[in-house]
């Protein structure tokens, strides 16, 4: 059982490492096309990564080991999230289930690492980005936990793979009000967590409006490479999880070569669709003012809470 899970985890990591830069490239391409531009092509993020790895890394005086270790911690936590969440298959390790709280905590380690890197730079922007990022992360967490809790009630367990497996067996539950409300809340939470519009504008140049970007202003060379790849992997994993929950078909329930191929094909399709959808929606969105974001998150929390109460009514009916 564990050997199968190990192979699956490795497959998922390899798939996500190769797919997520393409996903970000494709999202930028969709946005460019909607703006009438030709766009840099989907492979541009790969080229950026290769160039960054070949660049020199600078470390300012007064920064500690955190600036060196932080990026590595972020990329490792993102890889761990990709390995654990049910992207290609629902076979997991017996003793390390991809339980909701474990996955969220591993994500949070990445968040903390980036926040500390921001603080360690010792500049005003690093502190500002880190403070806003942590405030948003703190406000997002109730939404994430309660929405996945709502999904876990019909299944009776909070392990994500079992939730996906249960949704595979009975597709009607995918369209039930519980899952729609919970997934909508989860979508808002994912947007807030990965710093996409309307919460944070990834390609802004005005430092005062930045959240995620402000923290990495000080990193260069391979530190920046790991930070970029780490956040792309998180985006890929969360979008993958979201799309798997929304469209569970195609995921491999037991390990076989054919199953794996089918699953990766399905994963590519699902991530492409969700990514394009997200990029398309972003073109129409403007960045929310920082102190309107709590209202957005409170709204998504209410959605998650309604999902929970809805799951009670549905069970009885």
């Amino acid at each position, binding site marked *: 059982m564990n050997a199968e899970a190990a192979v699956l985890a490795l497959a998922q990591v390899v798939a996500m490492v190769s797919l997520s830069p393409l996903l970000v490239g494709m999202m930028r391409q969709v946005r460019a096309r909607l703006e009438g531009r030709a766009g840099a092509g989907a492979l541009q993020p790969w080229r950026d990564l290769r160039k960054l790895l070949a660049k020199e890394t600078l470390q300012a005086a007064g*920064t500690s080991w955190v600036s060196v270790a932080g990026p*590595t911690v972020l*990329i490792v936590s993102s890889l761990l999230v990709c390995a654990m969440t049910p992207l290609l298959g629902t076979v997991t390790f017996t003793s390390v289930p991809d339980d909701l709280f474990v996955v969220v*905590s591993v994500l949070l380690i990445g968040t903390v690492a980036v926040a500390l890197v921001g603080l360690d730079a010792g*500049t005003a922007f690093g502190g500002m980005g880190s403070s806003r990022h942590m405030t948003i*992360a703190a406000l997002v967490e109730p939404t994430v936990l309660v929405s996945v*809790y709502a999904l876990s009630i019909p299944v009776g367990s909070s392990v994500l793979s079992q939730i996906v497996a249960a949704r595979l067996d009975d597709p009607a539950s995918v369209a039930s009000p519980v899952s729609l409300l919970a997934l909508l809340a989860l979508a808002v939470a994912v947007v807030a967590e990965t710093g996409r519009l309307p919460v944070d504008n990834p390609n802004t140049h005005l430092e005062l409006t930045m959240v995620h970007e402000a923290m990495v*202003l000080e990193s260069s060379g391979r530190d920046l490479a790991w930070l970029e790849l780490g956040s792309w992997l998180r985006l890929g994993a969360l979008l993958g999880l979201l799309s798997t929950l929304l469209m569970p078909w195609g995921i491999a329930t037991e390990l076989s070569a054919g199953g794996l191929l089918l699953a990766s094909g399905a994963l590519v399709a699902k991530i492409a669709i969700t990514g394009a959808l997200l990029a398309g929606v972003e073109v129409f969105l403007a960045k929310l003012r920082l*102190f309107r974001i709590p209202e957005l998150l409170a709204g998504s929390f209410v959605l998650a809470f309604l999902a929970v*109460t809805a799951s009670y009514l549905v069970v009885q009916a």
Partner: protein
Amino acid sequence: MSAVELGLEAQLVLAVVAAIVATWAPPRLRSTLAGVVSAAVGLTGAVTGVLVLAGSRGRIEVPTSLPLGDVGLDPSPLGGFFMVVAGAVGAVAAVYAIGYAEGPAASRAAWASLPVFLAAMQLVPAAADAVSFLLLWELMALASTSLVLTDHRDRAEVRQAALWYAALTQLSFVLLLLGFAVLVVDAGGVGFDLIGSIDPGSTSASVAFVLLVAGFATKAGIVPVHVWLPRAHPAAPSHVSAVMSAAMVKMGVYGALLVCLRLLPAGPAWWGLLLLAFGAVSAVYGILQASVTSDLKRLLAYSTTENVGLMFLALGTALLLRSVGVGGPADSAVAACLLLVASHAAFKCTLFLAAGSVLHGSGERDLDRMGGLGARMPVTALAFGVGALGAAALPVTAGFMAEWALLQSLIHGARPEDRLVAVAMPVAVAVVALTAGLALLTFVKAYGIAFLARPRSEGAAAAHEDGAWTMRPAMLVSAAAVLALGLVPGLAAEAVTRAGGVAGVGRVGGAGLELSGVGAQLDPIALSVMAALLAVPVLFVSRAAARRRPRRQVELAWGCGGVRVSPRMQYTATSYAEPLARVFDDALRPERDIEVTHTSESRYLVERVAFRQRLDDVVEERSYRPVVRLADRVGLAARRLQNGSIHRYLGYSFVALVAVLVLVAL
């Protein structure tokens, strides 16, 4: 004379010896000798607790000349668990104090009351009947008050803090006295086993439950009665606040567990709901105050309120689920509560000792004036880092395992058919999630602002860690405990099962934790092995890239090319928490005033801008200040009674006598 009895006797004897040594040893040797003997008191307590957990029992009677009878000590496994926690924390703090105590903290009074405090605290869980429990409780309170008063000569707010602390501790004692009185009257005897036989459904049991839980909540620092905690901890010396926060506050939780599990086991559902509600409010309010305060020790004190709130929430969940008849998740909730106790003791002790070391090294208490201590105090930074990871409940630390267990029991406790539980569980999940999120922000702020970037004051710049040689090992030991509880929680599973008297907590694969009641298991070692395996390729690529392009040191960080890049431009703790204070401003009521002084020449040029922000404890403002004002008014009114005329005074006693006689006659 069984081993347990020997242990109990040894603790008393050692405490007396330590007190004697503290008073008579020459000042130079006093810290070392008294510290070693106090550590021995702690160790004996821990060993006795382990023995009790292993199953052996023993009872000793300590003769007291008081008419109430002798003090009976017969620790149950639950008591044993708390003795281990209290003993271990006491021993580590005593060793730490050898190097840390100087000036008033090394005086005779301080070194004499520390062992007495440790012994009393360790024996409270061993008490076998209500009277000895209250006696030891009061002895613990008095010893800790004298310890809080150590620095009262050179800091005025210490006296104020000690006043609040003493007032609320005595309030707790009075509530306990009343609660136990009601129980003893009902049971007809003081022994806990006797009290255990009362029917929890009766109204007197409910009255006793409310009184006792209120008393224990006051000692534990639950919200309405938590105001002493953020005052007493910054006032007391660091090793004392470490013991108070990590162990003494747990005695409140022990009391609650004692009442809910042993004295009045199968109580009605609203008991659980009461505990759950107060726990939830304390958790959120505590961590909210912690996230916006900038005094390091006050931050840690409020975080204690948060953790104790989580423990009461776990206990409330257990009671609620038991009253609805859901056995599995209820047992895992009790296990979660005990894990929270152990993990909080470990990481809070580490954090307070590290805060003490920061104060000792840099002389700074306020986060806004710290910075860059990581480079100057590596061991303290490591200990505080590990403690902060534990407090923020991040993986492979003790806090993570405890909160994982709590969330498992909450999630699997969902019973749609029961309306009460159906609403309580998601609210509890939301509260735990919000608390975990805010705890994350609080401890990133605490670690980031204090230990990273550049020093914001001369004290922080000149910080050093040498000198007190016993502080570093003590911090590292408790940091190791945080990691140990996080990596191998399976070992604690056995102790938790026996202490809580619950089934369904076992070991899985090596030392992972398994909550079979809810069908959830987690092996942190496997998790960290997976992370390490994934880290190998990353490090390989980094090493390859580093060979070609080595890392280069640069003089200035990128600050938009500005030349005047002074440390004051960095974010401080207050500014770090400012977005949060703005989001939760109706709960925190911050008072902000910005004072702009223009240049004399023109109104449009600004010479100086001053920003002041005051964040008071809203609960205190709303509930305690009016009570204090009312007491003052009553006091003034009472003064009119005393107008100097002897006849009036004699008249009062005469009227009183007559009144009594009339009453007797009726």
